């Protein structure tokens, strides 16, 4: 029992060290940009966590990261490494926005669940395309999700410049590719008066708990994990690998799709807007969610603090830009470094676990051993 604790402690400590290393490099970058790194980070984390307003902003920014991250936890556990979050968010948002445009007068109590469900369906549909391509045509899900991201973004541009555009944009002739102000019935209710915190935050937390239960308390979750751990043994045990791979991608898509819907209905403008690329709408959450999940050790509940950390960095980046004129793109670069370092830190984690493996007797030690022997 004690060794298990030590082990999970190491499992937590090493990725954290990787994040700190990335932040240290960020400090050097700040220094070379002519900003004081200590006051820079103080500004960042102060803005993100130092006040109720700031934390409320951070929580809102964390929603898409958490949802995408939880989806990644499920997919990666089923050993479906995919990067389709961006496209799935876009498709979820498009379907949910369509629902709000078609049924503007449905009361909130019904419309909000409807748009969230539409988001989940849109994302799940987009994710399951990649799943089916993988399962039945053996197309690498990494590649198909890249392509589906591109298709989704162009589809969004097409719709927002065409049928879904705000009629006002056409009469004014400005032609900004965005929808009209969506029905107030679909607005996610603000939870704290005068702040940004809205219903999306508890929804995301609820989904994270749901994913935890799915993965470890249901037969479905067991099948997903077992397919990820050993597809051959699973097949032998009568578990359908193609079906579970598709299911994993559909779950992952559904969560990204909900994230897309929340981005629209929890936004300040209550519109869906495109800048022509993917990052304009998603803010790269489809990619950054991967970092969240990796740092959390692919655990849905650990994803919560992990998402808050990255959400806080996004909020802090804007504060830093205002205070020290450091472009907020710094944070995207830093997130990239964190991904690289956290993934690389797996090597040290495996090694440190291997050193102590003789002393361990629980099943997870054989798991690490098995991985190293591959």
């Amino acid at each position, binding site marked *: 029992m004690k060794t298990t604790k030590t082990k999970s402690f190491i499992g937590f400590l090493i990725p954290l060290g990787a994040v700190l290393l990335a932040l240290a490099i960020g400090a050097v970058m700040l220094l070379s*940009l002519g900003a004081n790194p200590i006051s820079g980070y103080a500004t960042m984390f102060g803005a993100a966590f130092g006040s109720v307003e700031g934390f409320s902003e951070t929580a809102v920014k964390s929603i898409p990261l958490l949802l995408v991250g939880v989806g990644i936890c499920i997919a990666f556990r089923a050993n479906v*490494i995919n*990067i389709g979050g961006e496209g799935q968010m876009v498709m979820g948002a498009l379907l949910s926005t369509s629902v709000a445009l078609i049924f503007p007068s449905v009361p909130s109590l019904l419309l909000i669940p409807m748009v969230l469900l539409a988001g989940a369906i849109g994302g799940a549909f987009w994710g399951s395309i990649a799943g089916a*391509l993988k399962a039945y*045509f*053996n*197309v*690498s899900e*990494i*590649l*198909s999700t*890249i*392509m*589906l*991201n*591109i*298709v989704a973004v*162009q*589809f969004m*541009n*097409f719709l927002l*410049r*065409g049928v879904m555009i705000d009629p006002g944009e056409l009469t004014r002739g400005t032609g900004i590719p965005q929808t009209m102000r969506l029905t107030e019935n679909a607005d996610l209710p603000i939870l704290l008066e005068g702040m940004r915190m809205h219903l999306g935050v508890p929804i995301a937390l609820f989904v994270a708990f749901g994913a935890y239960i799915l993965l470890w308390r249901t037969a479905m979750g067991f099948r997903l994990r077992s397919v990820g751990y050993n597809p051959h043994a699973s097949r032998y045990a009568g578990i359908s690998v193609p079906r579970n791979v598709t299911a994993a991608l559909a779950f992952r898509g559904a969560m990204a799709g909900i994230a897309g819907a929340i981005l629209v209905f929890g936004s300040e403008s209550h519109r869906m807007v495109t800048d022509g*690329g*993917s*990052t304009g709408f998603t803010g*790269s959450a489809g*990619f*950054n969610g*991967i*970092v969240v999940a*990796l740092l959390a050790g692919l655990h849905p509940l650990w994803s919560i603090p992990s998402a808050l950390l990255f959400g806080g960095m996004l909020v802090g980046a804007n504060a830093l830009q205002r205070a020290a004129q450091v*472009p907020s*793109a*710094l*944070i*995207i*670069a*830093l*997130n*990239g*470094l*964190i*991904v*690289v*370092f956290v*993934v*690389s830190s*797996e*090597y040290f984690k495996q090694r440190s676990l291997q050193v102590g493996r003789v002393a361990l007797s629980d099943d997870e030690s054989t798991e690490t051993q098995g991985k*190293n*022997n*591959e």
Partner: protein
Amino acid sequence: MSDSFAVMIVVATIASGIRLATPFLLASLGEALGQRSGVLNLGVDGVMLLGAFSAYYTVLQTNNLYYGLLVGIVVGLASGIFYGFITLNLQAEQGVSGIGIYLFGLGMSDLLFQKFVGTPRPILPFMPLDIPVLSGLPIVGEMLFQHSIIVYIAFGLVPLMSFVLYRTTYGLNIRAIGENPEAADSLGVSVMATRYSAIIVGNGLAGLAGAALAIELGIFQQNLTNAMGFIAIALVYFGAWSPKGVMIGSLVFGMVQSIVLQCKTFGVIPRSASDLAAMAPAIITILALVIVAKRFKQPSALTKPYVRGG
């Protein structure tokens, strides 16, 4: 009269298709080399962005396009060393660490651009380099032999890389390591050194691709590549890991883009549908992947780290 006009348009479309194919070709040749050795690099787009910015900035400072290309390559090579360390020494999951490189390149190039350039200033692209005699040929001359030097370099690399891959010991080593590193290792081929070299050269080509793009467009902006690097990765699968196949894929891609552009300028397709047309390459790639996945086999050791005695 209308006939010669039609010919002119066709010639212009094909010529611009070749030009548009060039950055894809450079990047996907580099990616193909890495994948042949068994290493997947999803960070191409990020490396392209870094190469593009550094080339653009160098040209702004020195007014010398060749320095720009050179710096783009050097930045790519440096990224290659970094990626090699992560994936070979630390055996990081390649499907994910590449995304980290992509995000890093995306953020870093934008950061440097905002900090050191701010407002976009155009740079002059390469003048077309007319090949003597050949460029004077009717139709074919204008299509094939009146391009900038980068185009000739990129297409010249195709036979060169085919030769290296299929006719030299080094190429044999790369292919062997991509298929069966244990066997290659037992014959005394250094898996580590060979993979390092393939990744470094491959990333150098990605850096060159970014530099070529920035110089061709004469500008840099945030996310200049707009996922071109990801398409370059798909083209490697499209081209079934052979330099010739990759070239054909890049040309198809360039031509589709060029035709879409021409259709837009002549109003053949309405503006609103141009977004749909922009999906065409991605959809074609998915269909190609479905076909390729059945007929061609990827390098067996792709994405698998090699551990001696493992």
